[in-house]
């Protein structure tokens, strides 16, 4: 049983070397090649997935940053708007007050002016009226000679001649 027959050795050699060759060409070569391809593919896929994930999280962070910035910007704009509004309002208020006061002052001035003019008018009218009246009085008073003399006398009496 433990003697190796030459026939067995020859047949086995032919058979084993044939199967080695055939499997090598037919099976192992494509199998090992595509196994390697698949492994590389999986490795690359995982790698690219990881990088995509990284990119995504980066993008997300960027987005959040942008959003925060936008929010801040909005706050700023709103604040500015409010301030501007208030400013405008206060300015307007101030302006209106000033205008009012100016108008008021102007009105007062005008009133004063009118008043002064009226007073002046009144004065001149009073003067002319008084003059007229005085004229008329005088005319009437000094129509007689005796009144003229009387006046002169009276004035002389009141005047102290020293």
């Amino acid at each position, binding site marked *: *049983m*433990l003697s190796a*027959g030459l026939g067995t050795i020859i047949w086995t050699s032919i*058979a084993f070397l044939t199967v080695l060759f055939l499997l090598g060409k037919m099976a192992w070569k494509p199998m*090992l090649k*595509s196994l390697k391809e698949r492994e590389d593919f999986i490795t690359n896929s995982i790698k690219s997935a990881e990088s995509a994930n990284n990119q995504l999280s980066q993008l997300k962070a960027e987005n959040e940053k942008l959003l925060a910035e936008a929010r801040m910007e909005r706050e700023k704009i709103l604040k500015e708007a409010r301030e501007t509004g208030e400013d405008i309002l206060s300015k307007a208020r101030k302006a209106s007050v000033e205008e009012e006061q100016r108008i008021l002052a102007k009105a007062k001035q005008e009133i004063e002016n009118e008043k002064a003019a009226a007073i002046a008018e009144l004065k001149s009218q009073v003067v002319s009226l008084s003059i007229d009246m005085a004229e008329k009085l005088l005319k009437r008073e000094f129509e007689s000679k005796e009144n003229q003399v009387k006046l002169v006398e009276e004035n002389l009496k009141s005047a102290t001649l020293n």
Partner: protein
Amino acid sequence: MTIRIKIAELQKFKLKSIINRKVLLLLFTLFSFNLFAEHDINSDSTTTENKHENKFDAGTFIMHHIADAHQIHFFTLNEGKENEKHFSIYLPIIIKDQNGINVYSSSNFYHHSHTIEINGKHQHYYSYNNYVMFDEKIYKAEGDKGLMLDGAGKILNQSVLDLSPTKSIIGILITIILLLLMFGSAAVKYKKNPLKAPTGLQAWLEPMVLFIRDEVAIPSIGKDKADRFVPFLLTTFFFIWLANLLGLIPFIGGFNVMGTIGVTLVLATVVFIITNINGKSHYWTHILWPPGVPFPIKLILVPIEIISIFMKPMVLMIRLTANITAGHIIILAFTCLVFIFGQQSAGAGYGAGIGSVLFMVFMYFIELLVTFLQAYVFTLLTAMYFGSAIEEPHHH
């Protein structure tokens, strides 16, 4: 596994009852199957004469069943009777001698049976034309003298070159066909869509291919150099494993491919050749002039190293053959146990039969593991030898 039993041998026991015989036949039909054409046996008169004298000899029986043969024998019907029928595939016998190449069917030999007494034991041998066949080895016959022995039982006949495709060779061919079919069809799928996940047979084979590549080849040889050796390791692993599994299948004649020393011799020789033609200077210097070793020790070490070059593949060869043969022997031994007890009494035969079958089932599971384990060990050690051959000197 060789559970089939040649019923010719069973009949040699003096069975106590018909019932007992029927039970045993039933037991053995479990392990054998009617498949092939039958032939009537043209037994020599000497054969029948001695039949009743023979007692069941477990050793001869087992050795006969684990040995390579020129036929694939399934079973025999009507043992020892006039209408005895053998169910076998008779393989061609190719003989080369000074007369040129002769091709016969082995049925010619197996149907010319003779009995001869060797060292007090009755043994069978077969004859045809000018040849005799004893213990599956073929010799030249001188005239009609048959097998000639000297006083010590040594065969005097001139041996001839036997180039027959024996049972183990048929086992190898079946293994090869299965390998080509399995991996050929899997490879087609890999070619078609290399990036898809494996399906079907491919999914079953892929983990094992990866196992050999990633757990055997790469750790032993190194990642960058393993690629060159992976196809050989894969072929070796699957060839051995499948051949071993073939030997476990009952009813098909009990192949013992890796238990045939000629087969493992070829495998070990190929390993030896590949290892040594790939041997780098580092490998050879460590064998022929080991550095850092005092001169007197070198004198001892170098011959040992040189012997070890041959020893390593030899150990591979013997380990594989011995393990596979041992598995077959154990199961056959349990089978024999039934007949040994059966010779005593029917009851003992039944009892031993139940126990033996349980043990055989257990052993089958162990053997299933061993088929894988031995293929793995052979491949792993081969990878390690390759690894040591191509190892680069590392600086400490």
